[in-house]
């Protein structure tokens, strides 16, 4: 009985500890929800309905580093935002695009950028920490749940579990989010100055090891293809012009992919469902190493040149 009575001290400790942990959780989550830069910031901006440009870009790293949004904005005289997220496949991006399609009223065109690996099957959720501030959103939760039910459930419903999934970067960004909040709480939630674009100043380097290893054969995943087809349909139904764009990548990258023509025809088929199809995989850019950081990614220099080429075409389309 004595032992049972002493349990109340332990219980009190657990309650106090719980209060402390929930407070820390609130502080971190609040900061993370107010991040407006980086991939985490893009997701926040979209789910806070703060981005509604004339031209919206979605995609993975090839788009994030390859579409110079400020330059495109300058050249097209239209608002542009780069909503691409590094390393993220369209299955995971779908909830983001879907949310954007629901609320964006000003937007006229959406570019779906397809890198050479965009149609490949990818398992699991990539960097769930970017989605944690908005995991309470049913659209996000269901999308993540489809990819990794166990992880999505635990991150949403089990207190503090999400912290087993985050890197120290998440805390740093949360701190930045607090700074943004304090600075701009009167103006609301500002966009970042680079408009989602991440310039990469690096000169040519070898391709990442995993990219070159995977490159020999890149089978098309039917499910990913279907997700993209559905997204195109949905965006068009909301009155947006959809541009399916094969992003430029260096010709050495083509040599690494055995079934590139097959992938390309898959992308063409998707392009046929969209309003416009642009293929930059054979553009003159792709022969010059100066414009690339590696076989699959433009560098800052290349993205500036690419922006001028793309802007010309966009100006023609969006007249």
């Amino acid at each position, binding site marked *: 009985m004595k032992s049972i009575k*002493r349990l109340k001290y332990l219980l009190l400790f657990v309650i106090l*500890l719980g209060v402390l942990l929930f407070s820390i959780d609130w502080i971190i989550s609040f900061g993370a929800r107010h991040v407006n830069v980086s991939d985490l910031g893009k997701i926040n901006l979209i789910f806070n309905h703060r981005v509604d440009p004339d031209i919206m870009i979605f995609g993975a790293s090839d788009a994030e580093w390859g579409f110079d949004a400020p330059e495109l904005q300058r050249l097209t005289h239209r608002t542009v935002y780069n909503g691409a997220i590094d390393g993220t496949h369209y299955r995971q991006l779908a909830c983001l695009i879907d949310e954007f399609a629901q609320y964006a009223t000003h937007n006229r065109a959406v570019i779906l950028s397809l890198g050479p690996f965009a149609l490949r099957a990818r398992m699991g959720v990539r960097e769930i920490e970017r989605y944690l501030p908005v995991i309470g959103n049913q659209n996000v939760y269901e999308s993540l749940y489809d990819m990794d039910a166990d992880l999505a459930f635990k991150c949403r419903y089990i207190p503090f579990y999400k912290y087993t*999934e985050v890197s120290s970067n998440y805390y740093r960004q949360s701190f930045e989010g607090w700074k943004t909040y304090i600075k701009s709480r009167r103006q609301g939630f500002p966009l970042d100055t680079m408009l989602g674009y991440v310039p990469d100043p*690096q000169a040519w*380097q070898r391709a990442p090891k995993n990219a070159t290893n995977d490159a020999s054969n890149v089978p098309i995943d039917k499910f990913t293809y279907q997700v993209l087809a559905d997204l195109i349909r949905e965006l068009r139904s909301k009155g947006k012009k959809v541009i399916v764009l094969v992003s430029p990548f260096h010709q050495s990258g083509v040599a690494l992919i055995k079934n590139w023509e097959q992938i390309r025809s898959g992308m063409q088929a998707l392009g046929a469902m969209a309003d416009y199809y642009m293929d930059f995989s054979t553009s003159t850019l792709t022969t010059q190493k100066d414009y690339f950081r590696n076989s699959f990614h433009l560098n800052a220099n290349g993205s500036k040149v690419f922006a001028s080429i793309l802007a010309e075409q966009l100006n023609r389309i969006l007249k």
Partner: protein
Amino acid sequence: MLFNSFGFLVFFIVVTCLYFLLPNRARWSLLLLASCFFYMFFKWEYIFILLFTIAVDYYAGIKIESAEGVERKRKWLILSLIANIGVLAFFKYYNFLNGNISGLYSLLGYKNPIPYLHIILPIGLSFHTFQAMSYTIEVFRGHQNAERHFGIYALYVMFYPQLAAGPIERPQHMLPQFHERKQFDYDNLIIGLRLMLWGIFKKVVIADRVAMAVDTVYGDVHEYSGGCLLLAAILYAFQIYCDFSGYSDIALGSARVMGFNLMRNFDHPLYSKSVTEFWRKWHISLSTWLYDYLYLPIVIAKRDWNKFAVAFGLMVTFFISGLWHGAAWTFVFWGVLHGLAVTYEFLSKKPRNRLAKVLPNWLYSATCRILTLAFLVITWIFFRTGSMSQSFYIIKTAFNPLAKGYFHLMYRELNDDLTIMGFARWKFFAVMLGVVGFAVADWLIYKKRQFILFQVSQGLRWAGYALLVICIIFMGVFHSNQFIYFQF
């Protein structure tokens, strides 16, 4: 199910609550079921192999006890040992042996006809095999009565806190505990939870964070400078210590909450003044097992050899210890190096004692500690790499400070970031601060012989526990890092 997983947290809470809610007579069955579930979480089919050896040992134990005459008893003991060692040899050493046979064949220009088998090592095989063997040996020696209750005997082998990586218990210590009536005890709960907390902290905050740096360097040793290799080797010493002692603390703690006392497996081994002392403080349950069942019988059998009997016993014991740790020549070499060191220390006892009298005590102690730690760091390189040539390359490079670029710790990553062993600079210094902080805390515990938070007021103590929980949740690394000793 890993001790550092959310699944284990739920499992532990459910099993512990049920344990105290159930009447005493039903508790063994709950623990056995829980242990089966815990084991089957890794690879369920292997439960049948475990049940087979449990059944053989259970039956052999009874037969050994009831047999008349030493020869008859010995026959049953040998049967039990063959069953245990046979399973261990097949799962752990078949491919190793076959690989060596292939090497011999290819030297002679032939192809090895024996096939390579894709075998997954059952979790904790070396641990529970040794524990099972200690049972039949103790029954044979007459130090332990044969256990008549099959469920209790199965629980002795399978008790979940120590199933995956020990401590390797003795029947005299564990079997009576399973028969005892356990009452809920607040002190046991607090001691157990504290041990678990400290163990998880060591694993997820220190060991797994350090592992990120160590793995980066060991993943591509030729890319890194000698300074980096040396630092990685030193950090590995802390990683393996925090990893394994962390596991042991969680095991001891989770058993203690239910009122079971498992044997202590670590006693601050990194501060040992000799390799001999290190083996009294590192993986104590294995060291004492090898001492009782291997070293002592050898020394007694060869007692006519005088000092050489001890040397021979030590070398055989450490050879087996190396092999026990892993089916690779690097482990054997690691074991042999330790055997040589302990043998040297045994043979040089007198001159070293004379030196200790001449030198100031602090100087002698500090020198011994540094030399012992240096020896451990070097030998663990073989333990970590799994390749003799790579190990020698690391030693050659790491201990050549005059080489050009030796102190160049920064490494330029593909995305042009400057990193130190895979970390941004500030993160690297944070990790180093964590390691140094841990070493200081561990030293204080070692010196005071008491858990560090016991030396402060109650308020501070609870605040300390809260801080540990916060560090674990917000600073822990939880991704896929199995405990190092699970592979053995």
